[in-house]
């Protein structure tokens, strides 16, 4: 885990700061402006959701933060230090799991520590700890193709946690799962977040999921992708999807999100997909 640098006179820089990020994609048939003027500040321990329809650039933004893409303009800084490549401090959980199929569950989880030279005695302890954290201890020696989608995603989360990450980046991680598994994993994610006090940036297109999980929801719109507004979710956890407070917030967020689609339709602009 990175330590926030303390240099005495100045205030500690936030865990993550995205400054004026722009992203253009050039293809043979023209350029697409995927992101324009993104400014975000995220503090340690926050759970932030990037919410938006398909094509608004939320995944692109997450990938820029993760270091898989370079911003055309602007910078991403972790504790004040600029980052432009992937690293263990920003652990990514993909929608299609991206587990290593030739490794068992346990070997997948300890992949990061093994490659960073963690001593073998610590590795054994790490694997036990994170296997039990995601409830997969009896499956330690199974291969990914023998697991269900929910189990695979648990392995993906465990391997990022085992690698001592600061920020958990999640790109619609539960999108490929059925509704029951999804709600179970959402609960487990909140439990893990509360016990490890990690920072989470969660990309989703589901308003309910965003209101259920996040402290702060950043609503993104397309054409070009930008952050439209930010909504604080002040409900206490565990949150009840059927409670009136939840649904007030859900309606509010939905209104903000869809007003742009309605406006875009009226103005006649087409959202890039």
């Amino acid at each position, binding site marked *: 885990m990175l330590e926030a640098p303390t240099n005495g006179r100045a205030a500690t820089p936030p865990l993550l700061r995205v400054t004026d990020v722009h992203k253009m994609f050039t293809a043979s048939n023209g350029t697409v402006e995927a992101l324009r003027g993104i400014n975000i500040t995220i503090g340690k321990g926050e759970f932030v959701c990037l919410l938006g329809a398909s094509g608004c650039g939320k995944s692109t933004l997450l990938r820029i933060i993760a270091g898989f893409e370079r911003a055309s303009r602007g910078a991403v800084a972790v504790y004040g230090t600029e980052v432009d490549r992937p690293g263990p401090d920003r652990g990514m959980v993909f929608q299609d799991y991206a587990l*290593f*199929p030739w490794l068992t569950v346990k070997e997948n989880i300890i992949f990061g520590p093994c490659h960073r030279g963690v001593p073998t005695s610590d590795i054994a302890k790490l694997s036990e700890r994170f296997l039990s954290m995601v409830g997969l201890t009896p499956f330690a020696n199974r291969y990914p193709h023998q697991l269900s989608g929910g189990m695979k995603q648990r392995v993906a989360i465990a391997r990022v946690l085992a*690698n001592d990450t600061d920020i958990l980046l999640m790109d619609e991680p539960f999108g490929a799962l059925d509704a029951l598994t999804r709600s179970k994993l959402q609960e487990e994610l909140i439990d893990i977040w509360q016990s490890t006090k990690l920072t989470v940036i969660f990309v989703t297109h589901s308003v309910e999921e965003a209101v259920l999980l996040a402290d702060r929801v950043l609503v993104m719109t397309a054409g070009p992708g930008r952050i439209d507004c930010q909504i604080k979710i002040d409900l206490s956890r565990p949150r009840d999807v059927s409670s009136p407070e939840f649904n007030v917030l859900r309606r509010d967020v939905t209104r903000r999100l869809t007003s742009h689609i309605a406006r875009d339709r009226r103005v006649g602009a087409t959202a890039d997909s």
Partner: protein
Amino acid sequence: MGPQIRAVVAPISGPTTIQVAEGEGSRPVAVRGLRQRLCAVALAAIVPLCLLLFWELMVRWTGTRLIPLPGDVAKMMWDFAFGGIYNDAYSATLPIHFWKSVQRVYGGFFLAAATAIPLGLMIGRMPLLRAMLDPTISLLRPIPVTAWLPLSMIFFGLGPKSAIFLVFLGAFYPILLNTIFGVKSIDVRLFEAAEMLGCSGSQLFRSVVLPAALPSIFNGLRLGAGFAWILIVVGEMTGVPEGLGAVIMDGRTLSRTDLVITGMIIIGITGFLSDRILLLLSNYFLRWSPQHHA
């Protein structure tokens, strides 16, 4: 599985009877497995037996002297392996010829694997290397191995080195191309995940590229091994005195077709066995892959 209950429903007027029948679960598993395997062997044996019969009938019917009867070939094979029937230059010489051929086939094959796999891994990952080597490789590929025979004899003289070179050429391309294909079809996400977890640069080769490309590499190895056996006959036309290919060529010169067919059968069986061994190895190394079990 316990006894199965089947309901037999008779027409409305009659009574409904329920029978308890003993299902498959009553017989022990080991016996069932043996029966399945015997069935598989029996099915596999049908076509060869029919072919043997066809061969026997055709030779007897046409009265040709050019092709021996299956019985004569069987006699030759016995003599070739153990001697005692003809007592000529080929009696009981199977072990020597077999061993020489095996040495050359596997020598060429391992040489091909040892060069093609690392080269394929690198070409797959480094665009610069690919730009430099791909045109040359593609140009050399269509040249049949037989066309290399004269040059091979000039480079390596008469003898086994020449044969090994030709086997090497034949096995090299399938292994190389399948390795490159294997590397290029690795899901980009796996590289992103690996880099995100802290694995970078040359570590990626050992930890991600090689294991992910292994299924394709094994495909290439099986194809290469197959070609190696096919080419041993060509390879041993370079003037080696011993070897299964040499025996076939001798048989042709001496008009001893039984010798030719004996050599062919033995190469076929050995190639088959060597492929099975490779298959066993690949089933072990690829036990994590759901598609790779034969």
